[in-house]
């Protein structure tokens, strides 16, 4: 069994003097096995993602990175953590600095991590940025342009390029496609699937969109009111749901009418 890169062990979070928004959540992110966190607004998906990102500390339980408890004060560990775990946010309009050129935005993780290390300089920053932009399907001249010159789908590609430029092992994405039109959504989902294959990237995704989850992640955890009510293989959880809430979630997804050929048979 491969060991987990990231793990929440009995993690919970409560704001001061308030009921917990997340309670006793245990979940593992193992290499190559994408994880989906599914649930409705207020279920605690984003809170869990923030805990896994080290942006908030759990008020109970632990978050483990490569088997060691994640501690934001440990600078050596946090450097290794930021190198391994990167993120993409929901809204490509607010997650990119409008006053920086795309090249500088994408290079940001390299700057903050001090990469590439001067001793082992195989590639310089510009080459790594160009490589990341190529990987997400943007033209090389994109580096010289500003975010407002791009459409929503292209901006999300820029955000993904920024996340993968330091070659992380895990990509945590918070509703990465829900702000996009359906055809753009399919293209970004395809891109994430491609990066998963070519770069061995493990994608952890928060989403309310079950179709996207089913395409990208092998493992699904269903959250309801701060608790995981069901988790396991995506095909099992979404295909034969055991918990009533999961069933309700699946039944609520609007479906296309069956193809004419199927309808006749």
């Amino acid at each position, binding site marked *: 069994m491969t060991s987990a890169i990231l793990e929440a062990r009995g993690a919970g979070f409560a704001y001061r003097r308030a009921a917990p928004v997340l309670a006793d959540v245990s979940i593992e992110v193992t290499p190559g096995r994408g994880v989906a966190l599914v649930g*409705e*607004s207020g279920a605690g998906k984003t809170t869990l993602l923030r805990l896994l990102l080290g942006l908030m500390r759990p008020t109970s339980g632990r978050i483990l990175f490569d088997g060691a408890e994640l501690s934001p004060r440990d600078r050596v560990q946090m450097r290794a953590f930021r190198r391994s775990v990167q993120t993409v946010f929901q809204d490509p309009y607010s997650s990119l600095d409008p006053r920086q050129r795309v090249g500088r935005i994408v290079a940001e993780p390299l700057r903050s991590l001090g990469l590439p290390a001067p001793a082992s300089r195989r590639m310089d920053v510009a080459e790594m940025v160009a490589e990341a932009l190529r990987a997400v399907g943007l033209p090389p001249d994109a580096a010289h342009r500003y975010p407002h010159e791009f459409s*929503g789908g292209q901006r999300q590609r820029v955000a993904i390029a920024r996340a993968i430029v330091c070659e992380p092992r895990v990509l945590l994405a918070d509703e990465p496609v829900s702000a996009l*039109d*359906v*055809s*753009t*959504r*399919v293209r970004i*989902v395809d891109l994430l699937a491609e990066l998963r294959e070519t770069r061995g990237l493990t994608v952890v995704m928060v989403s*309310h*969109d*079950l*179709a*996207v989850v*089913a*395409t990208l992640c092998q493992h699904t955890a269903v959250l309801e009111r701060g608790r995981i009510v069901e988790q396991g293989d995506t*095909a099992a959880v*979404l*295909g*034969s749901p055991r918990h009533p809430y999961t069933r*309700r*979630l*699946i*039944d*609520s*997804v*609007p*479906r*296309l*009418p069956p*193809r*004419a050929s199927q309808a006749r048979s």
Partner: protein
Amino acid sequence: MNVLDVTGLTVKSADGRALVSDVSFTIHSGARLGLIGESGSGKSLTALAIMGLAPAGMTVSGSVVLDAPGLVRTEVVGAAERHLNGLRGRAATVVFQEPLTALDPLMKIGSQLAEPLRRVRGLRGAALRTAVIAALEEVRLADPGRIAKAYPHEVSGGQRQRVAIAMALACEPALLIADEPTTALDVTVQAEVLALLDGLVSARGMALLFISHDLAVVAGVTDDVLVLKDGVAVESGNVLDIVNAPRHPYTRELVGSARQLDGALDWSPR
């Protein structure tokens, strides 16, 4: 009888770009039409133009005729604001995407709902209060007394959208325009609100113009659709025909994308 007759509707921005170009469609009384397209396709602008609410600086040409029972048949394009105010709500009304911005944040829900009831039905005092509660009950809000006394931010998104629907229905419109009414809602809430809308529109025999980017949602609500791309109507017809045999390349792409995502939800052994 056609409640709505749109002919050659064109909306141009201040710098002369055509945002909606030569769009034509009709809706019979009690019929339903879906308007489908992606962001920037001109769906919402079409809805606003029908209400005579196109943003300042935009020029609207072509013809939009509203013909509701009991009201004068009216050409909306070029009509005086005073004249349109008499039509809005009664001939046609809109439920918008985001109920948090559609409702006044400083006014209790009951008072907001009372306004159209007072204006259209001329109710006052105790009768008005009863009508407010009845309207909230009709959109199946549990505990209507509490909701009426609450401010919009104190209730959930789904409840807010139900309130917005109640306000739209309060005027007893001949045509209801629903502009992405469930896009901002969670998927289980979306299913409930769609079922509610479907039931109310049928029960009252209202005509419905349903605007959405989601083919699956539209297919569940209306029989006929019009596909918009960059302000141009590229295809129209029965929703099953379009989903099964799209003719225009853009519709094919749209249906293909929707199919791809939809297919991921087929759990039968692969």
